[in-house]
């Protein structure tokens, strides 16, 4: 199963190293990771997506919780959370129509277009990993030159 973990950690040097080291040492895997400071500069929020069966995910949460630098560790329910990642796609333009076609595709996914050149353009997308994957599939025929994805950021929705 694919799981979104949300960690509130102390904003100190070396914490990212410790968290990623834990995943490696315990044979878990990181699908994506994003880190940023919170409104309180003493803390950072890490969002990690991972893949494992239920038991593994439970173990990951427990091991992360055991870390002294983690203040809070949550396994988010994806149906009760907002989760997005930002991606940048540099796409090849081979003929005159391509620019318009890519533009249309980007629009359909709520993307923004940047840096339009004669033979390439860039698309900025904010979407769920599934949507990003779907966009990538559709963009492939044009030729993808480069991709950069930030990893998922997520927050739990408020109740009612």
């Amino acid at each position, binding site marked *: 199963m694919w799981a979104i973990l949300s960690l509130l*950690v*102390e904003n100190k040097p*070396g914490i990212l*190293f*410790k968290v990623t*080291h*834990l995943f490696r*040492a315990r044979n878990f895997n990181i699908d994506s990771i994003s880190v940023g400071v919170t409104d309180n500069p003493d803390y950072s929020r890490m969002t990690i997506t991972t893949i494992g069966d239920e*038991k593994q995910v*439970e*173990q990951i949460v*427990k*091991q992360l*919780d*055991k*870390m*002294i*630098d*983690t*203040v809070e560790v949550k396994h988010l329910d994806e149906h009760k959370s907002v989760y997005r990642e930002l991606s940048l796609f540099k796409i090849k333009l081979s003929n005159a129509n391509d620019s318009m076609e890519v533009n249309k595709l980007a629009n359909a996914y709520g993307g923004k277009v940047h840096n339009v050149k004669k033979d390439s353009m860039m698309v900025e997308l904010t979407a769920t990993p599934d949507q990003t994957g779907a966009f990538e599939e559709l963009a492939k025929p044009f030729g993808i030159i480069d991709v950069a994805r930030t990893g998922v950021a997520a927050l739990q929705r408020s109740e009612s």
Partner: protein
Amino acid sequence: MEKMIGAKALMTAMEKEGVKQVFGLPGGANLPMYDEFARCDIRHILARHEQSASHMADGFGRVSRKPGVCFATSGPGATNILTGIATAQADSSPMIAVTGQVPVNMIGKDAFQESDIIGMTNPVVKYAYQPRNASEIPEVVRKGFYIAETGRPGPVLIDIPKDVQQNEAEMVFPDEFKIQGYHPWTDPDIVAVEKAIDMLLHAQKPIILAGGGTIISSAFAELQSIAETLMLPVVTTFKGKGAFPETHPLSLGPIGMHGRAEANKMMTEADCVLAIGTRFSDRSVGTFETFEKDLKIIHMDVDPAEIGKNQTAQLAVIGDVRVNLRIMVKLLLQKAIKKTEETPWVKHVKETRAYWKENLKLHPGEMGAAKILRKLRELLPKESIVTTEVGQHQMWASLFYDVIQPGTFFSSTGLGTMGWGFPAAIGAKVARPDVPVVDIAGDGSFAMTENSLATAVLEDIPVIVFVLNNSILGMVAQWQRTFYDRRMIGVQQQSNPDYVKLAESYGAQGLRAQSMDELDKAIKTALSSDVATVIDIPIDPEEDVLPFVAPGTSLKDMILPS
């Protein structure tokens, strides 16, 4: 508030924690700390290798249940204690390791004797600090000791750059402090304990599996009271060996790869287990097919991450096991529950125990391992502390040396560090100078830290090293005999030194025992001497440790002596 340099703040803070001695080795990057020994009451015990210093601190910590402290310099000094830190972590032993580091402005420049010890030790410490300002030191020490000794104990590293040791600052030694992400479980879980009692009462074949956590939390009296009240047979893990008197009629001894036959048999037949402070390690249970399909597991542990890590439990009782066992004792008393009649299960357990005590085939020679270790048991006062190295001698000790007084047996059970036992015995003797301390060793392991004889002699710490000497790396040789068609590669140690002369050359006492009479005399001589003693006991290199459960197989498939 008081103005002082970082190194003095370190020593002052440690004195406030009750530290009486430090095991260590000086070097360039920790000289300011060493200089402070001239101005404080903390004793310095000089090791001959930093790894030994860390094992001494570990041994001290396990016996006293207060963190043992070791010092090492930067670079190789720090990397040398890595094994000691990992050993302490694997066995949840409280330890404070203080390393010197190159000055702050040299960090990351590949300076002389620089090593990123924070990075290297990360997966094997409970926590690590690297104060960048001298004024941080008092709080770091306070927090470090708190983390090391509370909850599930473990090693804490404090890595102090040399300039931070030398810089002067206004020091505040705090009584109060906060560690936001650290909440060791201290409260009992009464609801879960009540359920546990219910499960145990409804089981036909209940058993207690006592792990190392039982010893760490000293829950000996509680364990014994529960076992006797509910008439529960007790097996232990190897780490839990001696949590329960092994001479008690309900005791079956350790389970595992080299568990006792009666313990392995009964563990595999039980239908409900009260598992106390154990991680269900592979060495203890083999494969998980070991257990009966419908076995109900009650798992008590202070570390919530252990629940479900290796073995799924039907009931989790999270918290300090002594606190929860004490509640169990109280509830049993309140409810006036006491079993007086021997169930068919207990009868069966006692018969099985008696059968294997009589019928396990032993080495036929005069100097077989069982005879040697039973002789040692016979002559050692029951309060004596025993440590072991790692290998055949360790497993023979598990099989044939009965722990009578709980909490007097210590071994590197998790990491399995050869060379641990002797320096750990030195640390143990420092913690308990009033009792005999014996390291049950093999020649292979003893070779790894035998230079600790210098420490034992110079510092007047008279421990006994009991070397079962087969001039071979015995456990490896046994595996090569069993699984590799007797291809004995890299195990021959005929070039061992003469251990009697070796001991004497250090100023220690060396004795050799080639018969039971000589062994009797040697043990008595060692016990009445006030100098460290090595007893060299030549044994048969072909003797196997049996029973033996092959790795990755079930405890049901024990290989027994033929």
